[in-house]
């Protein structure tokens, strides 16, 4: 955007120095500039392509091409059937596998918990934006776990949530019986998701605060002068003004839940107990690395990609709708 604004003011000066004898209209000069650049030495002409080459080559060969390869791969067999087409065989097997079904229903659970994972940083960002006493301190403390590796976070909570660990010791002193936080199939997934939210809400908080920075302060002042309560301010001023940021956080939080919980699962539960904490990414890893079923893993990858596409397309749809409302 800045390019479009500044160009007209620059053109006359640079074109004059380039030695244009006849004064040509601005529209002509605009076209003349790139031609001069391209007309240089051979190496110069290809300079832009040489500059983008490493990045484009790496992204095409190690991101885009593997995606196609993987989808293609998911329709072939494993083991003795390696390389032969099996149609939708892998997909049929996936949906028949209770572990993969658990992984999908856990994705459903993540979707249900998504509003909580967005609301917590959203509310905290609101308070920080409204200059709660000590807001700078809160901001830097809350963001801290977001920079720690899931592996470190998982290891720390392994320690805290161990059956004979400190949390149960504290509960025990209140007479609450020990809970097997990571060993009970009904509880373990909630603990892992809870730890994930604990570790990542700071990231969403920073995104929210960046959104708040674009908020029109006059609106807030007006609401306050009119005697609006905090709830009214949040509901009628902040949420409508931050619609785009909120949607962005929804999508990135969902994608984060789908693609960055592997470290936690690996360290905290290894998918257990009784396979209750499987997510698609963990399933993919197990099938590829442990079970030697790369084609089946590719089918699971393709389904994960479709889930993410749906999340992404939903966002585009929402953005379009909010664009119309503007």
């Amino acid at each position, binding site marked *: 955007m*800045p*390019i479009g604004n500044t160009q007209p003011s620059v053109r006359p000066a*640079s074109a004059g120095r380039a030695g244009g004898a006849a004064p040509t209209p601005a529209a002509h000069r605009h076209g003349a500039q790139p031609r001069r650049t*391209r007309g240089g030495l051979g190496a110069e002409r290809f*300079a*832009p392509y040489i*500059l983008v080459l*490493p*990045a*484009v080559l*790496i*992204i*095409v060969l*190690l*991101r*885009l091409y593997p*995606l196609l*390869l993987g989808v293609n791969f998911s329709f072939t067999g494993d083991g003795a059937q390696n390389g032969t087409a099996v149609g939708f065989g892998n997909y049929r097997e996936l949906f028949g596998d209770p572990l993969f079904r658990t992984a999908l229903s856990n994705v459903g659970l993540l979707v249900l918990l998504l509003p909580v994972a967005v609301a917590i940083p959203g509310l*905290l960002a609101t*308070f920080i934006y*409204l200059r*709660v006493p*000590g807001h700078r*301190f*809160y901001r830097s*403390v*809350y963001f*801290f776990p977001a*920079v*720690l*590796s*899931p*592996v*470190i976070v998982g*290891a*720390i909570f392994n*320690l805290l949530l161990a059956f004979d*660990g*400190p949390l149960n010791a504290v509960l025990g002193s209140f007479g609450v019986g020990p809970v097997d936080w990571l060993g009970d199939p009904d509880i373990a997934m909630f603990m892992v998701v809870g730890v994930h939210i604990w570790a990542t809400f700071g990231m969403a908080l*920073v*995104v929210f605060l960046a*959104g708040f920075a674009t908020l029109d302060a006059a609106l807030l002042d007006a609401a*306050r002068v009119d005697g609006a*309560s*905090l709830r009214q*301010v949040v509901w009628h001023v902040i949420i409508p003004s931050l619609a785009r940021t909120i949607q962005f956080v929804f999508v*990135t939080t969902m994608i984060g839940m*789908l*693609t960055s919980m*592997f*470290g936690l699962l690996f360290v905290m539960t290894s998918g257990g107990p009784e396979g209750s904490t499987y997510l*698609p990414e963990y399933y*993919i*890893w197990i099938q*590829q*690395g442990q079970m030697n079923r*790369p084609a089946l893993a*590719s089918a699971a*990858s393709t389904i994960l990609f479709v889930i*993410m596409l749906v999340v992404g397309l939903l966002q585009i749809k929402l953005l379009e709708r909010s664009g119309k409302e503007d």
Partner: protein
Amino acid sequence: MSRLRLGRWLIAIPMSLLALATIYPLLFTANVAMKTRRDYILDRFGLTDALRWENISTAWNSVGMGRYFINSLFVVTVSVFLLLLFGSMAGFALSQLRFRGSSALFLGCLAGLFIPFQVIMVPLARIMADTALIDTYPGLILVYVAQFLPFTVFLMTSYYKGIPPEIVDAARIDGSTVYGVYRRIMLPLGTPALLSVGILNALFCWNDVLMALVMMPSAEHRTLMIGVTSLRGQYSDNIPTFASGVLIAAIPVLLVYLFLQRQIADGVAAGSTKG
């Protein structure tokens, strides 16, 4: 107004409790790392009576965290260097130079943003095996560069778009080549963005576990995070050593955070608002 003001102080109570919940787990771990095994079993929460560094040195030497630390440091340094080099080159060309196909190439780079590693893990491992790059440092570095390059190109392109084109024009008229402009103008002007993106990439690579797990099967090539995952099985009955291993892996990140917190937050914020 007064209602809002009173509310502010009331809100500070849950916010402080949450702040405590945010930092306590790490403080607890650091405290445990300083205790003896006996101390920990007798009293989990009490402050350690002395700063004992034996557990740390055990974790560093006998557990092998020291070697893993060096491995990680090497892989992260080279990866971040390549990311910044390729990212700034492409960002400069895509934002400041006009050439045929530039917008298609930019979109191609962006498409990489929407492909998570989990989705291409299987074919990527196969490609790496076919090219004999699996279980080698160059292989893992290449995977890291590919993983974080779309984001780096995107942010560098947005940043360089803010630099007025007359700067480039002036240098070109003075006879500078495109490469000269990149080296003498774009790299120095890009320093704030390079710093921000570089720190973020360093954190991403340092913290990664899945890519290292898939690409580096053998034990001597382990990165530090894989080292942390192996602590669980080996040292689950020796909690202070376990905690020391975790602490070794967390301390570099903690230091980076303490000194460069603003750059990290800026990078995250730039990634969200530029989209």
